[in-house]
């Protein structure tokens, strides 16, 4: 005889909220869908902004990119707040364990001064790049349209704050407070960093939220993360005895790979929407891409030395390949 554990079975009146049934039919929706779709106000906005009366409070025309439905831009990772913090807490645990391991085993002492200096020169000023990326993504989240597009950007922004903090801790661990001072000085004054700083400041001056997303997340981070964390740190520094550094940047390596899946998919959907969108994306990715390549090469040179040019060519090809998969043809020079 079967045993009924539930006290009663009640037939629900409906499976979900009206707006989700309209989009996805009468089946129960996922937590991601419930948390994201249609939750931004759309109509009957009350007042014009005093900070810019030409705009409406939620204004899809701030961008040159046009979408019939901005909710087409979904996040393949399906992150909403709950799943986002769970994922980052796990990664944070690993990263914390890595810091702990490097510190308690004195791994930093095993590196040569020269190697340690190389790592500091490359990585410490990047904490300012990360802070720029944080602000740029807050801009996209604040002024973009449609929650499925904007929500990943607030996650991205705070991730970049986390990364800036890991890079600061890395600097403190490898070179103490002086390393942070030196890193900031390089960021402000060293010729090798000036194209990069100009890039970041120029992106911060852009007020088209999708262009900011493209210039920062797609282009700059799309080139920077594979180049710096996968090639310069994990390959080049690691083989010279810098495994410790590679452990301390593991969060960034994995995070870069994870977020590229999202940003690539956004570009793909936008490009597939219309020829006009594709043309705008091509223009942005080419222009910003060219500048990003020029800004990154001098940072790679002290670590990659003779192989810098080959490395840049390889990275450009990989980047253009990803863009092509997303439906955007670009050609960058090095």
């Amino acid at each position: 005889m079967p045993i009924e554990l539930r006290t009663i079975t009640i037939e629900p009146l409906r499976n979900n909220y009206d707006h989700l049934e309209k989009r996805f039919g009468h089946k129960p929706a996922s937590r991601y869908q419930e948390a994201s779709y249609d939750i931004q106000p759309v109509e009957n906005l009350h007042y014009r902004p005093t900070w810019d009366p030409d705009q409406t409070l939620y204004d899809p025309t701030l961008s040159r990119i046009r979408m019939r439905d901005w909710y087409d831009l979904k996040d393949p990772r399906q992150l909403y707040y709950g799943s986002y913090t769970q994922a980052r807490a796990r990664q944070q645990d690993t990263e914390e364990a890595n810091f702990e391991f490097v510190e308690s085993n004195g791994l930093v002492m095993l590196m040569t001064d020269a190697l340690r200096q190389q790592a500091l020169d490359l990585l410490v000023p990047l904490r300012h790049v990360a802070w720029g990326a944080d602000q740029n993504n807050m801009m996209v989240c604040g002024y973009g349209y449609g929650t499925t597009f904007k929500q990943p950007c607030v996650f991205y922004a705070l991730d970049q704050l986390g990364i800036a903090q890991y890079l600061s801790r890395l600097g403190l661990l490898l070179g103490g407070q002086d390393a942070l001072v030196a890193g900031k000085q390089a960021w402000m004054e060293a010729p090798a960093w000036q194209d990069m700083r100009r890039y970041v400041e120029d992106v911060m001056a852009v007020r088209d939220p999708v262009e900011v997303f493209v210039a920062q997340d797609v282009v700059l981070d799309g080139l920077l993360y594979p180049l710096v964390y996968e090639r310069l740190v994990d390959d080049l520094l690691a083989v010279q005895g810098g495994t410790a550094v590679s452990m301390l940047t593991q969060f960034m390596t994995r995070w870069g790979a994870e977020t590229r899946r999202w940003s690539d998919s956004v570009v793909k959907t936008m490009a597939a929407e219309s020829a006009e969108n594709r043309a705008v994306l091509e223009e942005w990715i080419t222009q910003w891409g060219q500048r990003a390549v020029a800004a990154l090469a001098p940072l790679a040179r002290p670590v990659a030395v003779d192989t810098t040019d080959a490395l840049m060519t390889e990275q450009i090809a990989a980047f253009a390949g990803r863009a092509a998969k997303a439906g955007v043809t670009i050609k960058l020079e090095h």
Partner: protein
Amino acid sequence: MAIIARKPYDFPPADSVEHYHGDQLIYMCWGHHLMFAAPFMTMASPKTSFGEFLKTALEPIIALDPDAAKVDWTKVEWTRRGKAFKPALDKSLQDNGIVHKEYLRFDTPGLNTVCG
């Protein structure tokens, strides 16, 4: 006082009279009759006579109050813009000077069955 904004800031009201297809809004408040939680918003053509307006737009909605049937419109005390007001029942709203979004309060002394 004027708004502080980064650029010229001037937008039309969302409920100006041209949105009402020839009609206008009139707000009506029955003094000391708080069974009706708030003043009413009514709508009528400015050419309607005041008496006709009371009959068609106001009487049906105040009928729920036990005092409604006892109201004698000729004895009602009217207030407009804080001052006593004597509307002519046979003249149009317009000719009574009642503009779009005018607020009129009427008191019926002696009638206070529920909210004494």
